[in-house]
């Protein structure tokens, strides 16, 4: 395989399996962007290795799209630096950065055929003739749209348009591909299909990919590393496993599916475990921050790790709602003190019935309450 890659014409590297990484390390250094008095980005530091797939994850308004637009050059910085391979690029116009970008609205050129859309970036680089044709053909093949090359964007379905947008962004062999919630306009089934395709294309072309999303599943399944953002700041950077297992604070935990949080008081600390008293019951959890006994804290847990049953022991609560989701039942219960708990149950519990909830050991995390 290596021999083949060595003999390959450089022009076809992008279509070869295991393409070499292109471009250098992308460094964001104290990235700031404010709109008037509002700080959309309050100093972002991030180093991205060549070929890495990075997901920027956060709720709407957290600054993830602003960050992407700043990297693309569509928004000017109000502070900080962006470097690619050690070279400073934040002063460059977007057309001089050579990054490929995929927009949420696809942003295809409605008056150009699929072929012309994909070829636009090549034409701007002065690449013409058979070379351009070959690269357009390869890019369309990669998104499986060879047969639609002469259609106008308006004649394609949403999923096909998104594929054209991806082909158009990668055909110029950008060192960095930027994707702004590219799947949010597609239906659920197509979203899953395209997700797999996007990762496959990333692995094939070897560009660095920065992918903005508010969908934790998308980020977890696609990215090498996830950057969780909130209010213009980075909350945590880590691999999907790190984020999923060990979120650093309540904000990240909330985003990683720890839907239930129960305020309580630390009873004792032993190593990285702590005992917390909630509503008179004591539970052991993994302390994600340093605590001393007597401090206020919150126990956070995912619905699937908080099991409800009709009999004691456990936290006593009343079932508010319950729904069937195939393997198990998921629902919401309320304690006498008013705390809302999202739980899993293996047996159907009726609404209004009493339930006893027990957190699975080792699955509960303990955070400082004011972490957000």
């Amino acid at each position, binding site marked *: 395989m290596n021999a083949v890659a060595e003999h390959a014409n450089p022009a076809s590297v992008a279509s070869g399996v295991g393409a070499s990484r292109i471009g250098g390390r992308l460094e964001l250094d104290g990235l700031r962007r404010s709109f008037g008095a509002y700080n959309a980005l309050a100093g972002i530091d991030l180093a991205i290795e060549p070929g890495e797939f990075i997901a920027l994850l956060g709720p709407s308004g957290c600054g993830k799209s602003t960050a992407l637009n700043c990297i*693309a050059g569509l928004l000017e910085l109000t502070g900080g630096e962006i470097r690619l391979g050690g070279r400073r690029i934040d002063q460059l116009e*977007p*057309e001089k950065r050579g990054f490929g970008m995929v927009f*949420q*609205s*696809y*942003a295809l*050129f409605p*008056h150009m055929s699929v072929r012309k859309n994909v070829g636009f970036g090549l034409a701007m680089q002065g690449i013409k003739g058979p070379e351009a044709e070959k690269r357009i053909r390869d890019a369309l093949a990669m998104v499986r749209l060879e047969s639609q090359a002469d259609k106008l964007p308006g004649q394609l379905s949403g999923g096909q348009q998104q594929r054209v947008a991806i082909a158009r962004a990668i055909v110029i062999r950008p060192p960095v591909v930027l994707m702004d919630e590219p799947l949010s306009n597609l239906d659920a089934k197509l979203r899953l299909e395209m997700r797999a395709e996007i990762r496959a294309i990333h692995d094939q072309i070897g560009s660095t990919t920065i992918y903005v999303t508010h969908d934790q599943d998308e980020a977890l399944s696609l990215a090498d590393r996830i950057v969780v953002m909130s209010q213009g700041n980075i909350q945590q950077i880590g691999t999907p496993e790190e984020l999923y297992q060990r979120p650093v604070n309540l904000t990240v935990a909330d985003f990683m599916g720890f839907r239930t949080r129960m305020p309580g008081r630390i009873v004792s600390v032993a190593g990285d475990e702590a005992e917390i008293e909630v509503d008179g019951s004591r539970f052991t959890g993994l302390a994600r921050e340093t605590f001393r006994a007597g401090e206020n804290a919150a126990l956070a847990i995912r619905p699937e790790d908080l099991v409800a049953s009709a009999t004691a022991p456990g936290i006593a609560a009343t079932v508010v709602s319950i729904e069937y989701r195939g393997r198990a039942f998921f629902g919401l219960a309320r304690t006498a003190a008013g705390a809302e708990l999202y739980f899993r149950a293996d047996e159907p519990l009726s609404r209004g019935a009493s339930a006893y909830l027990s957190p699975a050991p080792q699955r509960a995390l303990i955070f400082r309450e004011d972490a957000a």
Partner: protein
Amino acid sequence: MSAPSLRSRLAARGLDGTTLLILPGLIFILALFVYPFAFGVIDSLRPKEGAWYANYAKFFHDPYQYGTIAATLWLALPVTIVNLALAVPIAFRVRLMRRQRLLTTILVLPITLGTVFVADGLLTFLGPRGWFNHALMLLGILHEPLKLTNNYWGVFASLLITGFPFAFLLTLSYVSGIDPAIEQAAATLGAGPRQRFARIFLPLLVPGLAVTFCLSFVQAYAVFPSAVLLGAPAGPTRVISIAAYQAAFEQYDHSMGSAIALIMGGVELVVVVLVLAGRSLFYRGPAGGTKG
């Protein structure tokens, strides 16, 4: 099984209660457009003397009359082109502004002034003793006043001022109808501002600009008050509507007047058809991008 009622059969063909809403409009069109138009056609074919086509023959044999076609075109075409040329860049700038409404209001104000008011203002401003010449002479740029009124340029300026708001408003709506992400996409693909304009915006704007051109042109071609007040109505700005007016109300030949009015309409129609035919060579679908 009973057949569907008459009402539902009519509704299936698109005829229902809502269809009745077009009635008032239809009555107005019949009474104020179709009837007068038909009346004018018939009137023009009944000349005071000679065969049914005598009015048209007379018009096209008299250079003093048929020359008005060119004189009017010579005013209306440049004015329309200059108006569009001004409207496009200004619309592009205004599109990006936050206080869009204020500026748009200022630019659109001339619509509310009326032709006569503009003409009067221009006479004072651009006249031989007006501020414009006065200022230039005080600054030593001119030694004698430029003649800017009672000639071609007076009418030109007036048409520009009254026509610009229309061209601008229409252009602005077309320009802001283009999804900004389309331009951003072109930029990330390496297109500089000039290429983005030439290869993305212009092709998407052509259909809208063609319609704007037609509307502005028809408006300018029908020029009458400013040609009389600011121009030289016996000379270079003797436009076709003046010829029609003179025939109908000075020589009391309403049949000839009708004929000239129809010729005027015919010229406008030719220009509009040419422009719209040219438009069909371009993409005409939605410019707002795609589903999203």
